[in-house]
């Protein structure tokens, strides 16, 4: 029991929570934005992989870190445009198209990586983002080192969550996106072009997914390997449901999951001798399913999610 309390009382755990949460926050926001407009984007896993690869590759070839981050976002947006072409313009199944984008983007990432970087014994590395201590706040005891000594993309992710919450709920654009996700025919009757809204939301959302991937190679680690996203994209899809399609709650959900994950990592090192570590690995997922079961029952799913929109049809 004291081991558990020691873990909870260490600033290292809480600093790790924010670090683990960052790609989840960005990915969940991206998936949430797509779904608010009525498009499920299962391309997330592949788009994150590609973002991780292309961001890293750019920096490896001499670009600075922020340029790498931006290129990852643009690449994500391009895959978003592909998904939008398939699901919005052509009205294909969003499940099938999304999984197709994931398969394509994942293998394409590895292909490009292997073309650009020859096989080597140990993977090549770059110099990642350095943590920045926020003046003043980082000097606070415990809270300071836990929350205010992070790399810039982490701060950016939190700001983006607040910004997206504002856009979705407080601006005419956000209302147009929500209306499109609820009833595109009603949106059109009010003079909004639902196709344009969906394209915009899917491209912007996918750019966030690309950034989520880039965080892994440019901040969390310093090299790229093809399996590094490790299902984080799928976690994001679940977190969207957990958050009831609300950006603020998505932030909370991502932090909660990251907390479980950071906690189990440390439990492994303290109790790992007595209990097989695989049991600890399961903890965040089991707790997520439990939380999802509780939250999702009350969630109000966007009514037009996964329904292609065609003009003049009802």
């Amino acid at each position: 029991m004291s081991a558990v309390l020691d873990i909870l009382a260490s600033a290292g755990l809480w600093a790790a929570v924010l670090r683990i949460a960052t790609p989840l926050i960005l990915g969940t926001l991206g998936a949430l934005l797509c779904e608010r407009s009525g498009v499920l984007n299962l391309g997330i896993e592949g788009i994150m992989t590609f973002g991780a690869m292309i961001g890293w590759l750019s920096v490896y070839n001499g670009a600075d870190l922020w340029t790498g981050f931006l290129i990852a976002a643009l690449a994500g947006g391009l895959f978003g445009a592909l998904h939008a072409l398939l699901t919005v313009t052509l009205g294909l199944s969003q499940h099938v198209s999304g999984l197709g984008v994931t398969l394509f983007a994942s293998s394409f990432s590895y292909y490009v990586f292997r073309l650009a970087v020859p096989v080597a014994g140990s993977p090549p590395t770059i110099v990642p983002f350095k943590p920045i201590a926020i003046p003043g706040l980082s000097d606070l005891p415990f809270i300071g080192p836990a929350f205010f000594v992070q790399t810039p993309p982490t701060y950016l992710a939190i700001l983006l969550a607040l910004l997206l919450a504002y856009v979705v709920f407080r601006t005419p654009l956000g209302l147009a996106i929500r209306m499109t996700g609820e009833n595109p025919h009603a949106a059109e009757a009010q003079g909004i072009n639902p196709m344009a809204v969906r394209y915009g939301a899917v491209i912007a959302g996918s750019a966030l997914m690309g950034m989520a991937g880039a965080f892994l190679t440019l901040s969390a680690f310093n090299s790229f390997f093809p399996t590094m996203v490790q299902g984080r994209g799928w976690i994001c899809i679940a977190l969207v449901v957990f958050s009831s399609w609300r950006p603020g709650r998505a932030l909370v959900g991502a932090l909660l999951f990251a907390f479980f994950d950071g906690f189990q990592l440390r439990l492994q090192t303290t109790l790992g001798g007595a209990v097989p570590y695989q049991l600890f690995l399961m903890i965040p997922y089991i707790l997520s399913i439990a939380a999802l079961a509780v939250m999702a029952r009350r969630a109000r799913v966007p009514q037009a999610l996964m329904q292609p929109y065609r003009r003049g049809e009802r």
Partner: protein
Amino acid sequence: MTSPIPVLDIVGVSKRFGSNLANDDISLSLAKGEILALLGENGAGKTTLMSILFGHYVQDKGQVLIDGVALPPGKPRAAIRAGIGMVHQHFSLAANLTVLENVTTGTESLWSVASRRSEAREKLLAISRRFGLTVDPDARLGDLSVGEQQRVEILKALYNDARILVLDEPTAVLTQVEAETLFATLKDMAAQGLSLIFISHKLDEVMAAADRIVVLRGGRHVAERRAKDTSKAELAELMVGRTVTRPVREASTPGEIVLEAAAVSVRAQGVDVLKAVDFRLRAGEVLGIIGVSGNGQGALAQLLSGTLARTSGDLILFGTPVEDRLSVADVVASGIGRIPEDRNREGAIGEMAIWENAILERVADYSRRGLVDRKAGKAFASRIIDQFDVRGGTPTSRTRLLSGGNMQKLILGRNLINRPRILLAAQPARGLDEGAVAAVHERILEARRAGTAVLLISEDLDEVMALADRIQAIVGGRLSPPITAEEASAQKLGLMMAGEWQAEQTHAV
């Protein structure tokens, strides 16, 4: 009527869909403060014309003038800006958004950094006060009743400063009381200077609410009448293109009692939906159950269809007391035909073929060695299509493609073709046009002649008075004692529907 230029002028509009000429050179005009009814059967081209007006479709020929200025075709935004507001039959609303959000979507520039919510709320409240359309701006739309949702749809149009309001079959989803409130509101709007067009195929409401009536048939403008210079009979003939008379029941002697309920009560989800109801249904007669929707009709129909169990009382079917509850399989096996209230949801499965819907209730009869006998099923569907005059589909076409009237004929046919002993008909003519109503009524009377006992649940006075031998009113889950058709008058039934039979009875005694 006083202004020289009409508010709206539709000039020579034509629209073709494939081989179907939906609108053929239609012209009409609308004056300020006028209520115009666009009357026609389903498929007469009313909705197409209004969709052109609103920019959802682009016409092949002709133009739409607002205050004498031509409207660019195919641009909903331009139509909104010109002051046209559309109230769709299937509401264009989002259930998960609030009333205010539904109304204000798209009314501000998409790129402004903040929604002006307090101003929007004030404007909405001002409009709702002006026209007496009370609604809570912060209520979630999905929590509102259908009537309130329609109010939101109207408010949405008015919020966009509509001067011309188009309502597509506004009463299709409303109860009688809600419909009356709506028409009072529309008259008030016209008095305040708005111009209104409402699309309808119901003669009563057209006569009651409109100043002028334009009749469309087969995509053509066939007649135009002032409401005060015409009659329901004339309009019916203009609309259908021939004289339609609804069939009327002829005298007959009913047979033995096939279904009897004695003090049957049903409690569902903690509510007493049926309270000690008594009725007797005899072979070869129509028993009409009249009442405003939501007074227990649903529970009564479900009880007799086997999908709801009674809590107390006795149910005697063909002389045998029903033990516990009827199962759906028993109901089908014992020859009870059912016409459910909502044909799209409970009556037929739109995505399935006509023949599949035809045999769905008795798949076992159309199976061989565990496989569906498609040939027999299609043959059965063909027989229904022939005998019941189902138009617009073959046995293999999708059921959704049928019009409401033809889908109802299919459901009727499926139930009547094997001569059921009891027919349970809930709102059988709801939403159908005049020709289809006559056809459905004729079939029900035909079944009655053949000795079927018909339980007719309806909220349409004309329908019940034309078909039923005896009538009971349903109010708050209670049934009135029966009166004969000869005793019934619209006034008396109206009182019974308001629950006034207890007083009547004591007088009689």
